């Protein structure tokens, strides 16, 4: 039977028991959101003793299913005030699943707010250990020192931003080479972990692959899914994700006029090429050394979209430069120097903050005149303030919305106080519906309509036309909630959307593991149920339809080059929840 760890930080006790039966067939986001719905008072303070933090590997995580090493982290978000699930790909998740754990729950709060702890998880047990010596340590040093101390283990930790309970703090996991680089970044979950006095979790490496209940069904599904991933132009070996990483999107969105530039003032960035995946791949090839494309965030990913970006001397600068970070710390700040962008990502990874929220907060700060757009060195200086915990650092570290309010800025690109990612809603109308209506706050991964709107995956729609986008956003949000529960990387959906047998394969792997009989038609219904719970939690936390609205400036400021405002009507936005 799968196990469930409950850590009570108030009395510093740990309980390892059998997973409650209601959660036994759940995983990932389905599990974290059900748990938060059931056990967390929606009106609680996110940083107080009544919030709970839950880590859950996906349903098929730890098996031989491809690209399935994801972990979901859930809590009430201190950034949005609503429910949050943020997931990451890391060997940590596979180890946890392979040791037989369905979830780790962190609840309560230590009396002495200064003390820090570490949770050590082995196959049979889990214990809390004092960790005051890690106070103030960056994520790089924390992961490295814990890797030395607890060999053959995987690590999860927070950086100084999480300890200081800043709402852009994320939760860091190691990659296969023990870089502090894989993040459940969004929504301030690192601050929740910090509020519990938990600096890190160390999980003994899980040995064997999980054996599915029905091996034949699982194997058949796995084969179909792998075949789909190998045959799709986007996900195949040597395909664009593998060769250029997600940053190949920089030039695409720039050509579509939808690359938010200089704090969402324009949709085209003249320096796009220099921060693009194509340029990055060239620099990596030229500099050699530690640099590589086609890196995997966890063993068993067949897509391998990650990378290691080298310094001019070939040494490891950062992993990884992905589209969101190249945009948020590049185009969004008017910065076209990839080495400066890499340095900023490295700072974010070390301080323990979300690169999207950080970049957008810096964009808002530049709007306020704290630095000039395009001045990468000034941006690096501002970012360092967050790690120092100076008063300015605390303002920036609490996100784009907070920064905007502190400096009287009107152009603040947030929904539910969470920063918008790298797609301009005024140029791509459907993704705006997802940003605005998802219970998570502005989040592209929650319903990635970019696939049919821009990329020609799953159809080809006019990005500027709002018609019909509501249904698509809702359907994508539902499918995503299911995929996030499985533990699959969202990027498998590029293949599953276009190749029906790959979708069957995905569902069959789940059936093989759980002994269920889901069909591809059930996916949307399963996903909608998760969305309903999340929405209900938010309503009980005080959210209304007024929180499902775009930032007002997008209604009246036309975005060049298409010169559109955000013109999806309010009624259409509300209609997303009419199911």
């Amino acid at each position, binding site marked *: 039977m799968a196990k469930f760890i409950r850590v009570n930080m108030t009395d510093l006790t740990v309980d390892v028991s059998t997973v409650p039966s209601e959660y036994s067939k759940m995983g990932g986001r389905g599990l974290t959101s059900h748990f938060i719905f059931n056990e967390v008072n929606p009106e609680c303070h996110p940083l107080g003793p009544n919030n709970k933090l839950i880590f859950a590997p996906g349903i098929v995580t730890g098996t031989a299913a491809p690209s399935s090493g994801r972990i979901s982290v859930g809590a009430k978000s201190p950034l949005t005030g609503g429910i949050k699930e943020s997931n990451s790909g890391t060997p940590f998740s596979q180890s946890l699943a392979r040791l037989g754990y369905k979830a780790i729950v962190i609840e309560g709060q230590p009396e002495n707010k200064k003390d820090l702890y570490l949770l050590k998880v082995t196959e049979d047990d889990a214990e809390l250990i004092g960790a005051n010596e890690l106070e103030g340590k960056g994520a790089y040093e924390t992961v490295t020192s814990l890797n030395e101390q607890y060999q053959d283990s995987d690590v999860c930790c927070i950086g100084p931003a999480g300890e200081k309970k800043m709402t852009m703090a994320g939760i860091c996991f190691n990659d296969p080479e023990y870089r502090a680089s894989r993040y459940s970044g969004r929504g301030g979950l690192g601050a929740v972990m910090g509020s519990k006095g938990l600096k890190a979790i160390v999980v003994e490496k899980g040995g064997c692959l999980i054996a599915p209940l029905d091996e034949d069904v699982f194997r058949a599904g796995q084969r179909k899914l792998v075949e789909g991933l190998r045959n*799709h*132009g*986007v*996900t195949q070996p040597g*395909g*664009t*994700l593998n*060769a*250029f*990483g*997600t*940053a*190949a*999107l920089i*030039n*695409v969105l720039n*050509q*579509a*006029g939808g690359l938010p530039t200089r704090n969402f003032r324009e949709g*085209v960035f003249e320096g796009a*090429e220099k921060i693009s*995946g*194509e*340029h990055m791949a*060239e620099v990596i090839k030229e500099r050699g050394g530690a640099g590589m494309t086609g890196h995997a965030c966890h063993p068993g990913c067949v897509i391998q*979209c990650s990378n290691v970006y080298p310094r001019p001397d070939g040494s490891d600068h950062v992993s990884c430069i*992905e*589209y*969101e970070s190249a945009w948020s710390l590049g185009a969004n700040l008017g910065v076209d120097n990839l080495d400066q962008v890499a340095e900023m990502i490295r700072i974010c990874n070390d301080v323990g903050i979300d690169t999207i929220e950080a970049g957008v907060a810096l964009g808002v700060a530049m709007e306020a005149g704290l630095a000039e757009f395009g001045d990468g060195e000034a941006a690096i200086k501002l970012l360092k303030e967050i790690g120092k915990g100076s008063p300015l650092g605390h303002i920036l570290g609490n996100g784009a919305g907070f920064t905007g309010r502190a400096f009287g800025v009107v152009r603040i690109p947030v929904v539910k106080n969470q920063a918008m990612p790298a797609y301009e809603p005024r140029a791509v109308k459907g993704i705006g519906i997802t940003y605005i209506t998802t219970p998570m706050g502005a989040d*592209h*991964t929650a319903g*990635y309509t970019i*696939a049919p709107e*821009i*990329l*020609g*995956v799953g159809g*080809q729609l*006019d*990005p500027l036309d709002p018609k019909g986008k509501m249904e698509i956003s809702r359907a994508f949000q539902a499918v995503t909630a299911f995929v996030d529960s499985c533990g699959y990387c*969202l*990027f498998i959906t*590029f293949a599953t959307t276009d190749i029906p047998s790959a979708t069957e394969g995905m569902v069959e792997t789940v059936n093989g593991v759980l002994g269920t009989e889901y069909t591809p038609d059930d996916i949307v219904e399963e996903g909608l149920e998760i969305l309903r719970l999340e929405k209900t939690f938010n309503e009980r936390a005080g959210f209304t339809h007024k929180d499902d609205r775009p930032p007002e400036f997008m209604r009246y400021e036309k975005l060049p*080059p*298409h010169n559109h405002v955000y013109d999806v009507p309010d009624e259409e936005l509300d209609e997303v929840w009419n199911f």
Partner: protein
Amino acid sequence: MVRVEISLFATLRSYHPQGRDRGSEGFTLKVESATTLAQIYDTLGIPPEEVKMNFVNNRHQSPDYQVQEGDKIALFPPIAGG
């Protein structure tokens, strides 16, 4: 004749007329009026199945789009990300 500006991206850069090393640079092409994008792939030696997205002046166009003087054309293979 009309003149158009072309940029190639990702794997399509190997079809740059001046060679792969110049892949990131845009170039100008002079073509008969009413030439389609599909004919331009042909001129450049790009197999049509390798092109997934065509942007002309920041708008999506299909391969049968007929180019006009001054069009800025961007050609991409299948790309995705997040």
